[in-house]
């Protein structure tokens, strides 16, 4: 992975954030991402991200689960080990529906969680750079990726004009690496030491 230069702007209000996103995008800057303390509806559209294909994946997992259930049960109960249960036909579909349903849900749910973790690059032992600690508390953090030509001072001034309460420049690793939060560098501890 490569280290890159980023400029971040911190906002404390959705109503300021949305116009700011629009301004930054029309000015031609590349927004790497906006980190928010909670899901903000419509932000994905404002950022111009393509719609997630997670639900398509979920559908495929669901169909897989359904197929697994039908093929397993029907093979077991009609071919492999047919049992007479209360005189019911061997192919007793109504009785299987709960199992078919459960397996569909199980496959879809587990598959989607794992896919989500993969897409977000989340796993035990995987570490990513935190741009601002308060993104997990009360601050919307907009991260803009800079190139060699970007005038970072201008960009920071631009963000302040757009309503950012705090801006700064960071050179940070973009991807993930193996590490531990309790032993590895902790970016949010070193920067904020408040004098008593």
């Amino acid at each position, binding site marked *: 992975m490569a280290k890159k230069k980023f400029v971040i702007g911190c906002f404390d209000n959705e109503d300021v954030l949305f116009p700011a996103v629009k301004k930054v995008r029309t000015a031609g800057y590349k927004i790497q991402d906006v980190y928010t303390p909670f899901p903000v*509806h419509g932000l994905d559209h404002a950022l111009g991200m393509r719609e997630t294909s997670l639900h398509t994946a979920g559908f495929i997992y669901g169909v897989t689960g359904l197929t697994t259930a039908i093929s397993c049960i029907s093979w077991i109960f009609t071919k492999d080990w047919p049992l007479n249960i209360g*005189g019911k036909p061997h192919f007793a579909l*109504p*009785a299987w529906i709960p199992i078919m349903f459960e397996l569909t849900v199980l496959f879809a749910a587990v598959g989607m969680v794992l896919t989500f973790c993969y897409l977000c690059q989340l796993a035990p032992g995987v570490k990513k750079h935190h741009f601002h600690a308060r993104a997990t508390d009360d601050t919307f953090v907009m991260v803009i990726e800079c190139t060699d030509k970007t005038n970072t001072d201008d960009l920071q001034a631009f963000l302040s004009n757009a309503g950012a309460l705090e801006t700064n420049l960071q050179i940070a690793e973009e991807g993930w690496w193996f590490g531990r939060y309790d032993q590895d560098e902790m970016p949010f501890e070193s920067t904020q030491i408040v004098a008593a």
Partner: protein
Amino acid sequence: MNTEKLNFTVPSKARMFSFVLMAVGLLSIILMFLTDHVEGDENYHHTRAWSNVFAGSFFFMALSLAAAFFLGLQYAAEAGWSTTIKRVIEAVTMYLPWGLSFMMLLFILGQFHVHHIYHWMADGIATSGHENYDEAIANKIGYFGTFWWVRTILYMFGWLWFTLKLRKNSLEADKLDIDINNSFHWKNIKLSAWFMVLFAVTSSTASWDWLMSIDTHWFSTLYGWYVFSGMWISAIIAITILVVWLKKVGYMEFVSESTMHDMGKWMFAISFLWTYLYFSQFMLIWYADIPEEVTYFQTRWESYKALMWTVLFVNFAFPMVMLMSRDTKRNFFFLMFVGTIIFIGHYLDVIMMVMPGTVGHYWTGLSWMEFGNFFFFLGLFIYVVLNALAKAPLLVKNHPFLQESLHHST
């Protein structure tokens, strides 16, 4: 916000529409009673006609009751999203006195043997040696008779008291300039909490008493929830369609797309709840295969097969496919279209609950009788609800979640 649009007046077209529906319905009800007889069976006294009237009375009564439950649920859960449509929910609950009156009238007529919807109301049903004697019913006659009437009257008074009180508090709160302590809101929360408790018990027992006792020999503990889920989805659809219609004629622009999206989610979710309960009941009975339980599905399977599959398809597969995606839930035309069809589907579900136990194998398939009768009650329902809607502003004034609801977005 456009404040002059807060006061709803019933458009003359809508009033006309409800009158036409009622007139057509009334005409078909009269025709239905004139034509409904079976050659060669002297015990058949307009049974199908009475069952139709019963189904119509019950469906719309249950719908407004479920709307009262839904309103109570918003209070008890302190939900903020629904405040903008609260007046519409209230308007739907205002049909409850009408619905209960129809039910009461039918019960009294049944007790005087004008119709034979309830097998256990027959004379001498528990008297050994009488020609109507039925041992199975005689063994549980203690649950029917006087005790049944006591319960029926308690349900009716309980539901009415809570519904009217919730409405009254809501209107009282509007009269204040500012309700600093949210006193009426707190009153309604307390009322709703108690109403939830009452409703949890009585929705089940009332459906046993009023619907399940039509098939007096048969019983199912799941039945109450099955009936409840059906009435709940009907209420949600009625509310949704009303709001969409109000938006179309120029009112309620303050209801956000997100609120309608949430109503779409409810429609989707409760369709599944219904399916879940319907199927659970069916599968357990099918699996256990006990004669006294399977009779219920046997009558339906033999004489009502087409209707049974229609109901399952319309109420399960249809909403599942149509309302799965976010875009369809946000499309008002879709909500209205899908809602109308499921609404009819759940009316047919009530027909399925009533008819096999009364008409039995004399059933000849859906006909103008079912639809004409449905039109009468639908017309009356529309008339009552629109008038209730016109009596109060469309947006509540003093409600702590009003701002939250106005800015609701999902």
